[in-house]
């Protein structure tokens, strides 16, 4: 079998998604669309506090209410009362303490949600407020109150990375630049809020159907909480209305609550969240504070970087240890730097907790590192392209973790060149820059509220155009973060139709279609002959989570493996039947199997029925395991990921310097995601990811006051609409790689991580002013800070 096939029949073509028809007709079933006879509804019980000791709870006034089927709290949990991927710090129901406003103390279930809401407030809870920690830097002070006293510290994790010698690096550098950058909390904002139903089965097992990102993880958590074996828990993934990393921990916990209640009542129990519930309780993207110190020479060569990053982990550890691990690997960006000293810490606060979100620890440092690269260029009189060309990782370069990039094509500069040629970057950048030089009169002092004459800007001068770019490398899949393998079932039926089932769950991005294409390509059939089975944990091995943009790479590899085994079995059968040489090659295409030289051929369907008569098994579970990676925790050195992808975004913006509004005119996104399997799906990833990235740059922020979120719904939390980004251009360069299915790698996250950095650089190009804090909202642009209602009370005005 050729390793890197070139003439694809289906791969790379626009293929309509498998589940499309049900989605355009309203027939697709999302979690809230399932109803079961006798089903109970539920409401959560919370208190209005970010940090409190629970003293007593009195349920007596509702206990006998006919609307209440059961009250569920920590006492009802037979197994693990606390869960978490690394640290088991998150209670299913809080019993002693509440550490963030989303925390749930108990759940009431009953026939009617309305009636439950009406009586919920009758429950009397006595609690004592504790000091609230909202600033991660304060959490690490020695006298800070402990959020989880059992851990003796508010530090969740600390990753060091040490390469070369930064002290001599700095003393030998001709210039040094130091800057601090901050980023905000971000909501996943999947349009479908969380929903799950647990259905008790007669054999004492439990079935769960919900908006679940990673069914196998959910199964593990539910089994642990119920204290039963994995095989007694069956998780079915409903059609998922978006996830972006967000329907993991939250859904595991909701599933566990529903399961406990279902067992207690013997009836199906549904938990269906409103948008407000969802924003209140679900985890967010980490806010980062990033301090960069960079040593460089007049030639433009960067020699040394010292980076200190603090991530706000919020109330629970969740995925913070994995998210911040990616940060430590990628904090220096796609640059080859001799001396590096990086510390990344995640810490507990009483803020909403933070975990996995598309990007996973990379959008933050990319904003910082791409901003500082432009600043260095500026100081040296270079343009953004020149400084990057000098420092960018190339074939055989060594990364900051000491890994030599040799086993795949390093396409970083190719991606950048493609983007700058396509956009005419350098000319535009120079023109816009000359325009904006020396015109900083738009900035407000924050003191003189009545403007002096020179602060008025005429209508023809108020719009400033700018262009900016950013580049990245991204480690594919889990890396040294976890065990990396995936399973795939391909079952060819006697009539030539095919069932597929993946151990990796569809998240709405179109995985099923991608996998169908891989199988169809190898078996030489059309994708409409392929039926994708519902995700069900009882039928396929755990393949790890659909995270880290690993699904195409790992799952694609597994489907290629299974399909090739089947292809081999059919080939052997036919070679034997046609009395051909054992080494002869058969062509599988257009639903036919042919041997060219002997002019022999057979329809695929016939071959399948023949195989079944001969007792040949055409159901195969394929397996793909990533190559081993190595990692030295102490110094952060090793081959962190087995392969990487590269990309470049160019953003073109207009800034209204009278008001601080930013308009996104165009994003040009160039990605090397390896081989593209489905061009429609790949473009969709780029458009969707860049749009989320633009939201991150300009509009989106979960702002908190004392741990309480202000933006509880989409009227306040502003994600981009159809009118906010004028145009997006998606360009793919397909670098060579041996891994996965013909070198098809990762795309979902790279599309998001680059956008904010490019926009920030474009805004600088437009206004002449550098911004250090996301999001670049109206006040940030004009006043260089955020405005918050409590500023007044603190007397800072």
């Amino acid at each position, binding site marked *: 079998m050729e390793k890197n096939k070139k003439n694809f029949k289906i791969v790379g073509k626009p293929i309509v998604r498998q589940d499309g028809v049900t989605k355009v007709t309203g027939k697709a079933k999302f979690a809230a669309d399932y109803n079961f006879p006798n089903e109970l509804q539920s409401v959560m019980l919370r208190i209005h506090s970010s940090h409190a000791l629970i003293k007593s709870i009195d349920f007596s006034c509702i206990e006998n209410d006919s609307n209440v089927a059961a009250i569920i709290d920590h006492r009802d949990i037979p197994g693990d009362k606390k869960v978490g991927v690394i640290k088991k710090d998150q209670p299913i129901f809080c019993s002693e303490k509440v550490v963030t406003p989303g925390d749930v103390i108990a759940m009431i279930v009953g026939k009617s949600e309305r009636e439950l809401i009406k009586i919920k407030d009758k429950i009397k809870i006595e609690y004592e407020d504790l000091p609230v920690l909202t600033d991660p830097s304060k959490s690490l002070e020695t006298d800070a109150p402990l959020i989880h006293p059992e851990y003796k510290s508010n530090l969740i994790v600390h990753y060091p990375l040490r390469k070369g010698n930064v002290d001599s690096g700095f003393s030998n550098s001709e210039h040094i630049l130091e800057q601090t950058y901050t980023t905000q909390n971000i909501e996943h904002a999947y349009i479908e809020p969380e929903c799950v139903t647990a259905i008790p089965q007669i054999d004492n097992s439990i079935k769960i159907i919900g908006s679940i990102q990673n069914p196998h993880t959910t199964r593990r958590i539910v089994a642990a909480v119920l204290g039963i074996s994995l095989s007694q828990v069956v998780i079915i993934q409903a059609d998922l209305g978006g996830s972006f990393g967000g329907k993991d921990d939250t859904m595991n916990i909701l599933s566990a609550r529903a399961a406990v209640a279902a067992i207690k009542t013997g009836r199906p129990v549904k938990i269906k969240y409103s948008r407000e519930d969802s924003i209140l309780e679900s985890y967010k993207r980490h806010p980062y504070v990033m301090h960069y110190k960079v040593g460089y020479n007049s030639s433009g060569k960067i020699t040394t970087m010292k980076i200190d990053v603090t991530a706000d982990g919020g109330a629970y550890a969740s995925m913070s240890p994995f998210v911040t691990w990616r940060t430590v690997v990628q904090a220096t960006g796609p640059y080859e730097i001799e001396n590096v000293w990086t510390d990344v810490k995640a810490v507990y606060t009483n803020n909403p907790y933070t975990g996995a979100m598309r990007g996973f620890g990379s959008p933050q440092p990319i904003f910082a590192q791409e901003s500082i690269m432009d600043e260095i260029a500026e100081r040296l009189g270079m343009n953004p392209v020149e400084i990057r060309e000098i420092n960018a990782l190339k074939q055989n370069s060594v990364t900051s973790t000491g890994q030599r990039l040799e086993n795949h094509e390093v396409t970083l500069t190719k991606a950048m060149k493609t983007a700058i040629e396509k956009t005419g970057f350098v000319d535009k950048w120079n023109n816009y820059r000359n325009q904006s030089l020396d015109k900083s009169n738009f900035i407000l002092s924050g003191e003189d509220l009545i403007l002096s004459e020179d602060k008025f800007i005429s209508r023809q001068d108020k719009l400033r155009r700018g262009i900016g770019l950013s580049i990245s490398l991204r480690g594919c899949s889990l890396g040294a973060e976890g065990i990396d393998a995936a399973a795939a079932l391909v079952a060819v039926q006697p009539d030539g139709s095919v069932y597929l089932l993946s151990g990796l769950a569809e998240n709405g991005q179109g995985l099923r279609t991608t996998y169908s294409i891989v199988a169809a390509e190898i078996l030489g059939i059309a994708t409409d002959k392929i039926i994708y089975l519902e995700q069900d944990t009882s039928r396929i091995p755990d393949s790890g989570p659909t995270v880290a943009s690993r699904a195409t790479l790992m799952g694609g590899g597994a489907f290629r493996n299974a399909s090739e085994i089947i292809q081999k079995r059919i080939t052997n059968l036919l070679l034997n039947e046609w009395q051909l040489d054992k080494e002869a090659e058969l062509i599988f295409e257009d639903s036919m199997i042919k041997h060219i030289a002997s002019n022999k051929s057979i329809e695929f369907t016939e071959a399948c029925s023949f195989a079944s008569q001969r007792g040949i098994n055409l159901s195969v579970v394929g397996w793909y395991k990533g190559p081993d990676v190595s990692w030295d925790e102490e110094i952060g050195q090793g081959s962190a990921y087995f392969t990487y992808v590269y990309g470049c975004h160019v953003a073109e913006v207009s800034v209204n310097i009278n008001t601080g509004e930013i308009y996104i005119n165009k994003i040009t996104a160039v990605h090397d995601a390896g081989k593209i399997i489905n061009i429609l799906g790949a473009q969709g990833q780029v458009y969707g990811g860049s*749009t*989320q990235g633009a939201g991150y740059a300009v509009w989106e922020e979960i702002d908190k006051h004392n741990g309480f979120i202000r933006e509880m719904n989409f009227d306040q939390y502003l994600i981009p609409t*159809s009118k906010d980004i004028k145009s997006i251009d998606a360009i793919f360069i397909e670098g060579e790689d041996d891994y996965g299915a013909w070198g098809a790698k990762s795309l979902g996250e790279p599309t998001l991580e680059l956008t904010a950095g490019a926009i920030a650089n474009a805004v600088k190009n437009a206004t002449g002013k550098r911004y250090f804090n996301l999001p670049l909202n109206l006040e940030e642009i004009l006043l260089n800070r955020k405005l918050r209602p409590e500023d007044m009370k603190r007397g800072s005005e």
Partner: protein
Amino acid sequence: MKITFKLNGENVSIEVESYKRLIDMLREDFELTGTKEGCSIGECGACTVLMDGKAVNSCLVLAAQIDGAEILTIEGVNQGNNLSDLQRNFLTHGAVQCGFCTPGMILSSLALLNENPNPTVEEIEESIAGNLCRCTGYKQIIEAVKATAEMSNQKLRNQSA
């Protein structure tokens, strides 16, 4: 209270609770679960249906308010067993990812095309500005609507030729 209205082309009458919104009645009483709920306050558009031909958020209309009206939901958009051109274009242009926003998007686009067979890109953007999509970045949706307008204009030209 009892209300009578036209639902996807059929006359129906139902006894409905006063506190139910149109979306609740559609999903619970008629089991038409294609209409989705994403925010409950009129911001996301996932619950969009057509009321007397106009796009409305069914989370902002009480069931009682539609007495005598004509309602079209996603379940009524198909032409018999066939997909409409708009639905098919959503598929072929990659306008569907997770699909949660899709029913609302299709109904908003349909209302636009019924009123304005030749929309500009700006008009399409405006017509779906109240339909949030977190997956697609809207571009392929806009292309699908544009393509549908072009197809129907082509059909008209063919008829008159």
